[in-house]
């Protein structure tokens, strides 16, 4: 299923910014995400927003190219599931556009309408090496959370590069509660909604006559039901994952991914067979709910080894700390996952899942999202020293670094600290 998405979305690769100067990013280790593997003493040359070449340090570099040297070089990391940029202060409702418990609408809610590229979490996330985000709405009123989107972390006004990239639907305990109190209620709601879409003409010809959805919601869900748009289901328990897979088998045209999948390892072979990718939080290793009784820190490893497309995300704090996915991926490695699989979980896997052509890899022709690091990107002690998005050097300043610089010393003998800016 994933391959098909890749093919159908090549149209995405519109010409990126052309202003950027050529840059040669040298790394003692260059993780490419391609068959080139990890190049020792390598270089990535970028020009006109694209990767021009990737190879050993001896690779020819255009005259006048800026030289950057780093310990590690990787593709820009991709946060496969976040609420970054749609909640400035999560607990302050006025600033939180992630979900709408009181809305009349559900599937039609477009998270991109709430995106603010100036959100302070964007800078924090970029400084941690993440250049692209998939942003999902929160489901608060019904199990249909609405439409998710894809954005870069430049903070520019045009950061959103694909609106309505996926439909977000919540199952499991949370979905049951949103549907009225049980899993049967959520599945009945889901099937009813799909019927609303399939019989749209008959049901909504003159007025709202859907079983479940308003006219606008049914319209918004149409691409997903037709198989033209990815559906991202949230589910944790093995039986819930099997129910999603039953649904996938009964509706083979659907494009499905699953976020959560805490018990995914128990149904890993079937997920692989049906080519359903998952986004997991490898820190989930507690029976934190009755849907996570088989949660284990080895989930990501076992899924990857079974051939499932795995991406790693931070589900504990997805608005301000989505970038901790790299720490979580490092822990997945400590729990037995292959390093390359963990790196793919932050790059090529999300790029595949969302059809982000030319992202997540360092290869000639790829979009020049490149990160230079002062160490192994999965080590908690490492940090980016330079970040490029579409070939453009990004600001390494965030509101946090400004606060830090103000309070680095506390000397107020001459002037209050408020004058330091």
């Amino acid at each position, binding site marked *: 299923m994933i391959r098909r998405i890749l093919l159908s979305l090549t149209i995405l690769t519109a010409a990126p910014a052309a202003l950027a100067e050529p840059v040669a990013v040298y790394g003692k280790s260059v993780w490419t995400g391609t068959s080139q593997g990890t190049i020792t003493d390598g270089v990535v040359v970028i020009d006109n927003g694209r990767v021009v070449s990737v190879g050993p340090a001896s690779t020819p570099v255009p005259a006048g190219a800026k030289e950057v040297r780093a310990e590690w070089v990787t593709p820009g990391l991709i946060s496969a599931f976040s609420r970054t940029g749609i909640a400035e*202060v999560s607990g302050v409702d006025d600033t939180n556009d992630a979900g709408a418990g009181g809305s009349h609408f559900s599937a039609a809610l477009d998270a991109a309408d709430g995106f603010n590229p100036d959100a302070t979490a964007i800078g924090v996330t970029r400084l941690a090496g993440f250049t692209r985000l998939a942003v999902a709405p929160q489901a608060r009123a019904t199990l249909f959370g609405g439409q998710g989107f894809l954005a870069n972390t430049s903070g520019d006004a045009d950061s959103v590069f694909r609106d309505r990239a996926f439909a977000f639907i919540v199952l499991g305990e949370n979905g049951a509660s949103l549907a009225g109190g049980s899993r049967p209620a959520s599945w009945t709601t889901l099937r009813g909604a799909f019927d609303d879409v399939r019989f749209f003409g008959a049901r909504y010809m003159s007025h709202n006559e859907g079983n479940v959805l308003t006219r606008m919601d049914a319209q918004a869900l149409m691409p997903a039901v037709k198989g033209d748009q990815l559906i991202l289901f949230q589910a944790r328990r093995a039986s819930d994952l099997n129910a999603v897979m039953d649904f996938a088998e009964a509706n083979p045209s659907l494009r499905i991914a699953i976020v959560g999948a805490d018990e995914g390892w128990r149904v890993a072979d079937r997920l692989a067979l049906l080519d359903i990718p998952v986004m997991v939080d490898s820190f989930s290793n507690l029976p934190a709910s009755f849907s996570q009784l088989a949660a284990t820190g080895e989930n990501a490893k076992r899924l990857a080894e079974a051939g499932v497309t795995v991406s790693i995300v931070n589900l504990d704090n997805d608005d301000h700390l989505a970038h901790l996915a790299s720490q979580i991926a490092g822990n997945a490695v400590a729990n037995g996952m292959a390093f390359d699989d963990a790196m793919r979980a932050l790059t090529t896997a999300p790029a595949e899942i969302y059809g982000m052509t030319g992202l997540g890899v360092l290869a000639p022709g790829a979009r020049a999202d490149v990160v230079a690091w002062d160490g192994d990107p999965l080590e908690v*002690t490492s940090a980016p020293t330079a970040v490029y998005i579409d070939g453009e050097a990004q600001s390494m300043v965030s509101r*946090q670094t400004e606060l830090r610089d103000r309070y680095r010393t506390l000397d107020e003998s001459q002037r209050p600290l408020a004058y330091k800016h």
Partner: protein
Amino acid sequence: MRLRNLCLAAAAVLALAACDAPGKGSGKTPAFEPPADPFPSTYKAYPSGTLLISNATVLDGIGGRIENGSVLIQDGKIAAVGADLKAPEGAATLDARGKWVTPGIIDNHSHLGAYPSPGVDSHGDGNEISGPVTAEVWVEHSVWPQDAGFTRALAGGITSLQILPGSANLFGGRGVTLKNVPARTMQGMKFPGAPYTLKMACGENPKRVYGYGRGSTPGGAPYSRMGNVAGYRDAWIKATDYKKQLDKAKAGNGEPPKRDLELETLAGVLNGEILVHMHCYRADEMAVIMDLSKEFGYKVTAFHHAVEAYKIADKLAEYGACSSMWADWWGFKMEAYDGIAENIPLVHNAGACAIVHSDSDVGIQHLNQEAAKAWSDGKRIGIDVPMEEAWEWLSINPAKTLGIDDRTGSLEPGKMADVVVWSGNPFSTYSKAEKVYIDGALMFDRDDPANNPVMDFELGQPGEGDRK
């Protein structure tokens, strides 16, 4: 008789046996004297042998680092730490070449057992939100020892931890310090002789829960930060008066006051027997609280979360409070908006006491990584704290805030052998706690499934522990 003072005093708690039987040996217990220790610890160290761990990189937890170092464990205690120790006759040996050895990690902010897994409503025992002042509750009465979180924390090298009530209330109740050893009862985990603590909270939580929360508000107040402070002062005034009556009665001068659980705890703080742990994010609020504590003659032992500690690190150093912090949590509420990644190293650099805490059943599993993040973020701005010094954030400093630093928190002869053997540098994401010793007994061994505890709740479930 001053048995209560003796048993609960932060230092000088060596003859603990006497604490098990309140009043014993004192002739008579005065009518007004509440039992010193009504829910006594039944924890006893598990059997252990003599063990020499050698060839390791040893961080002693108080600033020392020994390459190719050894640690000798005998009778459940650290017997020796050095570069060239010989195994006594009959001692077991562990060749820890390439591995690191540290004191066990102590988390001074956990809700394990009180908010256990699974986190269903029936398990929500961490916060007595029925009123803004609930100094009368003791979180140990909520601790469910079958929380699988304890075992995951153990696998992360946690050997002791403080369980705190939640932060809804101005006064949340007493905290309890536990040894991270599985037991059938809370008492079986209770750290013998550890002083009690009191949880207090600043800022948004109390005013949200009481002033604006839940429609019909339990107490009506506080609605504001000034209401919070009035609430603390009001309670301390009552406690001061209660303590005066207690003192007079003890001096044989007048009737003792009626027993009052709330005021007994607050008077215990004013006596210096109970240590104050205060949830406080904002710098300006911590400054107010430091003054408030002086008004009533007590001391805040540690500010918790302290997201803005870096803004007043000098004042915290001068006052002498520790700050228990996250490496990078921020932005989830207004008072956490100014969180920065360098908070911990900036506090340390100002000469104040810095602690890495979790407040999370996930974070507690990798506090070493949280310390590593803070350590490296400090380094990048020129605060180059040696790793052996940074480890103080994880064991001796939290031990100080719990009044147990004379017994654990570092690898020093005579201390409890609470020791972790790491597969490599514990400041690396890839290193794991391989072996965890508590009072010298091997309580966790990553390579031996028989030495991985499994809680009752997990038995017979699709998953059984973290790795099945």
